[in-house]
């Protein structure tokens, strides 16, 4: 976490400890801090302060957007169902159940699990129009191509009158590829105009974006956007969901009236203040820091591909976050590389989830059509504010020998 962020949070632990919902002076100070943070955030997003809902992080914001919109729509969806007997002129149909309009969501195969698993949950969630058979939600998981970039034409093809939500991430968290959000927003706008409909809404998980990409919601054309604190040198356990004016959603939690009842519970004042500060810093430094990191990223990629045989880049070479490098190093396995690098003082992640609870290889690497062996050898390096060229030179000093060693006792020899 950025020291400047820590500093602005400091007074809100013990000094200004009030509950922002209280009427006493300490409470008003806390309320003021929360509302100032909301305005600051709104300004950066080009949104109205009212449209910012603070949550406990990116996962909660994604869940709130998807489940919240879906459950709100579910309440209204049966209205679209035609009354019994009104279907067609065929007599036999008059005795059948009314046709069930199954609400539909479009997302991609390589979303964060917070989005994917929310959608999977909806597929199981019984949806039943009055008198009709029960059915889960229909979800389209779009392909992302070999380079990990969604084609807006695929979104256009998947849209239908039952589509209530499109959720596509701004930048992928594993391979860093940046999605054409504005173009997708235009496709959706055109569809809505043509169909004279308010749906679908467009949500984007933008957790990876602040500090590198434009996050102005008007320019992007999104209706909902997820942001979290920990990815931007802010505190963990805090995030937000931006909601365009007029959007209704069903909350995940029920309780008090905080966050317009959409996220009840006493506000995490220091974290909210910290998130706003982190976002301000990220936004201020965006252009300069991005330009610096793009150079470092390209330098690192060219050295990795040039100096370690049988190494391939995952994701589009340039349409990716300035701080993301993801390569598959064949004939060596990800977890082993990570642990050898850790021993050498380099922290990075694997695309494969061998160190996490799930032993499944990365769904992102699989989504870009790479075989299992590539997914198990996928390595993600993230550059940060403190990363300098000498750090990359250090990695390139130790990594080739680590790979040589692992390949020395590997029985695998993949042809590329």
């Amino acid at each position: 976490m950025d020291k400047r962020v820590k500093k602005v949070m400091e007074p809100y632990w013990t000094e200004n400890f009030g509950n922002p919902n209280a009427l006493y002076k300490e409470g008003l100070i806390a309320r003021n801090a929360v509302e100032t943070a909301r305005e600051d955030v709104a300004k950066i997003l080009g949104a109205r302060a009212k449209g910012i809902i603070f949550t406990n992080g990116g996962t909660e914001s994604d869940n709130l957007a998807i489940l919240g919109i879906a459950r709100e729509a579910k309440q209204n969806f049966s209205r679209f169902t035609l009354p019994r007997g009104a279907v067609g002129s065929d007599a036999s149909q008059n005795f059948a159940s009314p046709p069930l309009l199954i609400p539909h969501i479009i997302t991609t195969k390589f979303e964060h699990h917070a989005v994917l698993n929310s959608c999977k949950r909806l597929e199981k969630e019984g949806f039943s129009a009055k008198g009709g058979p029960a059915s889960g939600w229909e979800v389209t998981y779009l392909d992302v191509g070999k380079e990990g970039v969604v084609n807006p034409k695929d979104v256009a093809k998947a849209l239908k009158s039952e589509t209530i939500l499109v959720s596509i991430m701004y930048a992928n968290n594993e391979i860093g590829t940046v999605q054409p959000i504005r173009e997708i927003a235009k496709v959706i706008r055109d569809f809505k105009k043509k169909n004279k409909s308010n749906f679908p809404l467009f949500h984007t998980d933008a957790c990876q974006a602040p500090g590198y990409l434009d996050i102005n919601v008007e320019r992007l054309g999104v209706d909902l956007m997820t942001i979290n604190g920990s990815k931007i040198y802010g505190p963990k356990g805090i995030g937000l969901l931006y909601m365009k004016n007029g959007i209704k959603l069903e909350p995940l939690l029920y309780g008090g009236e905080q966050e317009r009842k959409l996220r009840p519970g006493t506000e995490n004042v220091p974290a909210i203040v910290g998130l706003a500060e982190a976002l301000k810093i990220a936004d201020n430094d965006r252009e300069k820091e991005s330009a610096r990191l793009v150079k470092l990223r390209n330098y690192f990629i060219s050295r990795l591909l040039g100096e370690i045989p049988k190494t391939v880049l995952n994701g589009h070479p340039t349409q990716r976050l300035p701080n993301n490098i993801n390569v598959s190093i064949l004939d060596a396995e990800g977890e082993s590389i990570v642990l050898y690098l850790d021993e050498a003082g380099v922290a990075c992640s694997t695309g494969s989830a061998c160190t996490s609870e799930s032993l499944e290889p990365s769904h992102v690497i699989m989504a870009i059509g790479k075989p299992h062996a590539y997914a198990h050898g996928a390595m993600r390096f993230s550059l940060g504010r403190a990363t300098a060229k000498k750090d990359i030179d250090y990695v390139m000093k130790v990594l080739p020998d680590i790979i040589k060693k692992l390949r020395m006792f590997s029985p695998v020899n993949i042809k590329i």
Partner: protein
Amino acid sequence: MADVDKWVYSAIIKDHFMKPRGFLLGEPKEGEFDSYGEVGSLACGDIIKVWIKVDEKTEKIKDFKWQTWGCATAIASASAFAEMIMKNNGMKIEEAMNIKPKDIADYLGGLPARKFHCSILADKAFKKAVENYRNKKSL
């Protein structure tokens, strides 16, 4: 307080992983071994291949070598298995066949539960090698 120096696996696993023993460098030479066995797949993320040389009369394992592609515990368990069966100039096949995954895990000072099934493959590869050896002999 959490122990910040703690490694994700036991110190013994780390030692075997960082300094693996008993692996085969490159391809085996003609006649260097009597048979080999291989288990695992690219899909599941671990592959182990082992080679054995057996004394025909005593049925003692004269040489055992391995190669592994996989996570730290897969590499460490192969290395541990090699050490276990080559102690005292090699176990008898009969005895080595009795080594169970739990024995390897115990030898390594314990293994996370979720790693138990997928990464202890050395004993299975060894059993395949022995099977191949027996089949060859019975020809």
